[in-house]
């Protein structure tokens, strides 16, 4: 078991290093020259050259890469061009908001999706099931940014129940979280339904029923416990979707999070901030997947034994 954990952790390191590599490469490839942009239009070539040397941007890529890794490990992510604040501070201000939004959406997706999926599996081909499956298909097909706007029109404009945007109170969280969660609810519901149906077809369930075990027990103990692993995997993968979706949701609802920061950094050509923001997102995703992998080892005894 311990070997399994250690191996997984070690495997994650090259992926993390690779992520930093790709992000830096991408930023390098972005059109425009960061240094000239920083100094503005009237900068002299000498000033540009001096700043470039000062920032270490004249060094070869691999040297800068190693240097950046070193600095990241010490917590120094550079200074934002736009705001002239440390990137780490900018990120620190915004990531809690994104975390709050993503967690809320994950909880909604997990609860609503699993409940709907289980109900669909227990009463297959019922009216509920048909509606749920149709709803899932629609939920998967609706663009998040549009769903958000529609919800704003209905709940803020027409009904005036909830605020249009921004953050601050629990009522501000409702619409963005629901919007972000919707495609995930659909996916989780579909997945849960099929996973539970598969388990209910298994021989040991038939045996349990033949033994006279109550249906609730069959459901809870056998079906859900065994369907849990694929559902958990899906939730882990969904976190990536949620982070990507957070960018759109935060833009629509003016939610002060990492996603909105990133989009503004792109438009402001603030490459240093962009680098930090993308890095944080990607690292978070890697960590989450790592945790899902590790929880496998804990939940499924077969995995832990092999190491």
């Amino acid at each position: 078991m311990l070997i399994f954990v250690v191996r997984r952790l070690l495997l994650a390191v090259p992926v993390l290093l690779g992520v930093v590599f790709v992000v830096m490469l991408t930023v390098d490839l972005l059109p425009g020259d960061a240094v000239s942009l920083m100094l503005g239009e009237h900068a002299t070539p000498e000033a540009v050259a001096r700043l470039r040397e000062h920032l270490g941007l004249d060094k070869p890529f691999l040297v800068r890469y190693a240097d950046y890794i070193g600095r990241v490990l010490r917590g120094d992510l550079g200074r934002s061009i736009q705001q002239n604040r440390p990137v780490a501070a900018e990120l620190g201000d915004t990531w809690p908001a994104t975390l709050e939004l993503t967690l809320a959406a994950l909880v909604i997706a997990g609860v609503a999706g699993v409940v709907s999926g289980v109900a669909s599996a227990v009463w297959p081909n019922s009216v509920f099931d048909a509606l749920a499956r149709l709803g899932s298909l629609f939920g998967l097909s609706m663009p998040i940014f549009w769903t958000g706007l529609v919800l704003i029109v209905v709940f803020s404009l027409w009904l005036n129940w909830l605020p249009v945007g921004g953050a601050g109170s629990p009522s501000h969280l409702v619409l963005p979280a629901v919007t972000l969660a919707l495609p995930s609810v659909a996916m989780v519901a579909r997945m849960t339904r099929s996973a539970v149906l598969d388990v209910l077809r298994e021989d040991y369930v038939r045996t349990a029923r033949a033994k006279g075990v109550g249906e609730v027990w069959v459901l809870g103990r056998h079906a859900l416990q065994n369907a849990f692993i694929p559902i958990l995997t899906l939730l882990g993968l969904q976190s990536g979707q949620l982070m990507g979706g957070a960018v759109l949701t935060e833009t629509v609802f003016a939610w002060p999070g990492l996603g909105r920061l990133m989009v503004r950094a792109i438009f402001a050509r603030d490459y240093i901030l962009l680098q930090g923001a993308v890095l944080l997102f990607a690292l978070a995703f890697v960590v989450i997947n790592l945790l899902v992998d590790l929880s496998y080892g804990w939940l499924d005894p077969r995995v832990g034994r092999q190491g």
Partner: protein
Amino acid sequence: MNAWSRFRRNRLALIGLALIAVLTISAALAPWLAPYDPARQSLVEKRARPGAKYWLGADEFGRDILSRVIYGARVALLVGVLSVVIALAGGLLLGTLAGFLGGWLDAVMMRGVEILLAFPYLLLALAIVAVLGPGALNTTIAVGIWGIPAVTRIVRGAVLALRETEFVGAARALGAPALAVLGRHILPNILPGVVVYATLFMANAILLEAALSFLGLGVQPPTASWGLMVSTGRDVLLVAPHVATVPGVAIMVAVLAFNLVGDGLRDALDPRLRGSA
């Protein structure tokens, strides 16, 4: 019962197919179907409600939304189809190379794929489009490149699985050259899976293009892209909600159509794969 008859019995899949047909016809015959020129502005009638003259209303520049939605089908389908082609071409090439040749090439490629897939979906596409620049063509390329890692991994997995089967072994034992084995035995067997994937990928490609255009990084004005229309309609959301919401319905219908067909294909081609049926 063969795959086609299974597919035909799936009503939802047939509805999806019909919707795709409608979309394709709209896109192809746009100049004849659209009542107005999509770029024609009429500032006097800006934000007009849906009515007799403008069936779906007019946007903030007085342009007919119906016409722009019809023309928007062109962008959606073109970007979708071309990006699928790019993703499949790249993914099939890299995937079969990795699966067939193995060794260090496979290891390096899979590490690369793993790293690229470590990025949340939108971020990767955003990064590519930021490097390439905005515009319809660049968006197409970006979405295509974004799709390559996932296709590579799937194709590689399928090739690896088939490589070990008996009929491939027999073919090799009989002295069949590698390329022939590839072309006549392996590729035809991965084709159904690839077709299903490509259809579902179309759905995601349309969503991704819409998202990128919505953020202002994809298709640029005055081209009519549904995502872009939703974005510009945001400015007048509180006074004229139809401007932003109507194009979004088009996106949803298009994506739904491909999802329905993709699901139907998956159920028809391999009932064992019936995940969410």
